[in-house]
């Protein structure tokens, strides 16, 4: 007997949620094994990771701070994927955004904040969009697949940052490969007094709302969805397929770049080579787990913020590795994508051939 997957014609309503729950359980079990191995108690580790950050004001605000860049990259990936444009380059676009933002930040000393802040945000957005431009043109003009081109631009962006920080932007006081601290007038204001939560979060939420509105409610969004679901039929209906893809790619890059501005101007206040801990890649996980919905991306980003903060406190309290947070996220991705596909199929056992 051999197993074979056959498409289901109909599906009981509970199958989807049940499979997602199964994916979550598998993730918990695999993580529990690693936590056990590290000598920790899985139950209390999960409590630290998922619950304790929500019990204190500090934990909560740090969680939403950690979630902020993921809100941007999640939205950037989701909008691109919705149009069928497989942008794997949110990481590079975010990094390009940090470069633009830093350039404004270290050169704009005497500006009032009312100009400096919009300027630094705009700079990140433009640089992110520019970083997305080349793969988008290659795709729409020459039909070159964007997966690899967007991906390969990520290490280039990081190398440029490293080059800048080892060269012209080297810190003028310490001599370390970090940029100078950006001008006060370009730093994003704190929106929750007494915490580190800054304007970037609010902007991220607004971006999510705008994306949701655009894709779901506006004419351009309907075109974008039609192009993403069936480019051939969209073309027959007279929709500008190539232009839609190009614009979406630039918007996606711009959103990721804005995320870069938010990190530089909101938290780090300077450029370092570690400015992004893989936010662009995690953005792909966030958007995929959210099934490319924007509100869902916001929720997953917040959940990931909690996990990030929580895994650090679990690490401190139980002596388990803090990277367990990333482990949980990646296992969750693999199990959920499998579950999302499996729910469409049923396993048929066929007699193997002689």
């Amino acid at each position, binding site marked *: 007997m051999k197993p074979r997957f056959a498409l289901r014609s109909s599906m009981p309503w509970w199958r989807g949620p049940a499979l997602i729950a199964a994916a979550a359980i598998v993730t918990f079990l695999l993580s529990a094994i690693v936590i056990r191995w590290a000598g920790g108690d899985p139950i209390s580790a999960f409590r630290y990771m998922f619950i304790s950050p929500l019990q204190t004001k500090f934990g909560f605000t740090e969680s939403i701070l950690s979630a902020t860049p993921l809100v941007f990259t999640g939205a950037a990936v989701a909008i691109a994927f919705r149009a069928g444009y497989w942008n794997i380059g949110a990481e590079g676009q975010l990094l390009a955004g940090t470069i633009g933002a830093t350039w404004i930040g270290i050169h704009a000393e005497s500006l009032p904040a009312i100009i400096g802040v919009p300027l630094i945000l705009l700079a990140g957005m433009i640089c992110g969009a520019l970083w997305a431009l080349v793969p988008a043109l290659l795709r729409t003009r020459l039909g070159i697949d964007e997966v690899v081109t967007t991906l390969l631009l990520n290490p280039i962006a990081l190398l440029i940052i490293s080059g800048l920080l080892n060269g012209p932007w080297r810190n003028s006081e310490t001599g370390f490969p970090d940029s100078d601290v950006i001008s006060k007038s370009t730093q994003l204001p704190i929106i929750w007094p007494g915490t580190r939560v800054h304007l970037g979060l609010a902007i991220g939420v607004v971006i999510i709302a705008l994306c949701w509105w655009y894709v779901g409610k506006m*004419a351009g*969004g309907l075109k974008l969805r039609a192009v993403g*679901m069936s480019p051939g039929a969209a073309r027959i209906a007279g929709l500008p397929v190539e232009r839609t893809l190009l614009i979406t790619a630039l918007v996606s890059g711009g959103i990721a770049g804005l995320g870069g501005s938010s990190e530089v101007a909101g938290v780090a206040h300077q450029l370092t080579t570690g400015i992004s801990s893989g936010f662009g890649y995690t953005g792909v996980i966030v958007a995929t787990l959210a099934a490319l919905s924007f509100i869902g991306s916001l929720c997953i980003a917040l959940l990931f913020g909690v996990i990030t903060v929580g895994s650090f406190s679990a690490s401190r309290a139980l002596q388990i590795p803090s990277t367990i947070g990333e482990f949980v996220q990646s296992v969750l991705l693999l199990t959920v994508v499998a579950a999302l596909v499996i729910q469409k199929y049923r396993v048929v056992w066929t007699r193997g051939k002689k």
Partner: protein
Amino acid sequence: MNSHEGVGATHGGTAPSIFLRGISKAFGETIALSDVSLDLRAGEVHALLGENGAGKTTLMKILYGLTQPDTGLIEADGVQLTINSPRDARAAGIGMVTQHFSLVKNMTVVENIALASASTFSLDLGVVRKEIKAASERFGLEVSPDAVISTLPVALQQRVEILKALMSGCSYLILDEPTAVLGPQDIDSLLDVIKRLRSESGIGVVLISHKMAEIEQVADRVSVLRRGKVVSSSSVSGISTQELIGLMMGTDEVAVAQRRTSKQLVGNPILALNGVGVNIEMGGLSEVSLDVHPGEIVGIAGVSGNGQAELVRVLSGTLAIDKGSIVVEGNTLGKNSPQSLMRAGVGMLGEDRHASAVHALQVMENLVLDCIDSFATRFQLKQKEILQHCESAIAQFEIKTTPKQALGTLSGGNMQKVLLARLFSRKPKVAIISQPTRGLDVMATRYVRSLIMKASTEGTAVLLVSEDLDEVLEIADRVAVMYRGAVIGIVDGSTATRETIGQLMAGITK
């Protein structure tokens, strides 16, 4: 190669006859074949004649193991054959050249032929090369073994496919519309090859075709399929061309009786084609002149592959014209792009409804897909208006759906109604409608035809391209018959008969 695997004495004695018995096959709601029986004999060319969708290809795909029948069985001299895959078919001595070649384009001829027999490690292309040389000499099919497929012209690619099938040791060779992709000279040499294979190698050839001339030239027997049934099977010498066309097109006299009465043409034509020519490798259009008046339905009839598809592509703007002009409402179009035609008021219903439908979007969203901007303010879609528009379309066109259902979940007939609703609700001046009822059941077919007639009475000019002659005769005011890329004659719908049209379709003008 594995020539030893073929049953029967392959190219020596006589291979057993093959019988298909009571084959039925349905794809979802459409019945492709119902209770079809057919017998094939070695050393005989058996033509399968029928329009697109008649079931010829499906029947042969079943014989070659590409599709499994719902019921029915295949026998060779009384022994039942189990054919679950092309590999089984080849082992039983059956080879096939499908319409879309099963060749790997970036590989050489040798590599393609070696594929079928390749094991994991040993791959001696030298041996295969020698076998190819020997086989091409034996069958008179010359190919250069180390040429990359994509660099070969279509005729040579086809030759590779034939050689591949012959080298697998087949005693039956199925050719699915082999001449559809060839120019006149290549057609002649292919027909020669077929004759030689029959008489010199004793191979039984199944020739799927809808071209009368070539059937008369090479076939010994001909079976006609219509709507999934064999309607006739006889020797070619015992049947006339006109009889064959009649059998192929059907004799649905009821439909003909409902034909519209002759209509007085008023005013100037709204769409006019003046000497439109398209030069492409095969097919193409030559000097097509045609006009359609407001409120008129002009039907395009003809045996498939005589330029109808190219005409539709020209009028949808996806095939550029090389000669002549297209005039809409007195304005000559500079270039026939999809946008320019749409702007001029030409609407289109394509022959493949699935290619025009975004399955995952809602019915209401699909309905406004070609005019999204007129259903939106700067900031949002006018959901209420889209819903109202959809509800009125559902009511007007009797679509069995709710507005928010995904289009892909609808039946073929209802999906077609949605696309027709999208076409007609823009109030196009001209509607180009291609194969509107292909694959639909009787009720849906009736309804779709009545919709087209209703639109025309409301003043839309309709160009109806259909392989269903009944359909054309039933609703067209004038019938233009295409033959070899040209309009060979235009007949008034009220006086057209099956015979006059049939003669024109066969290329006979008095």
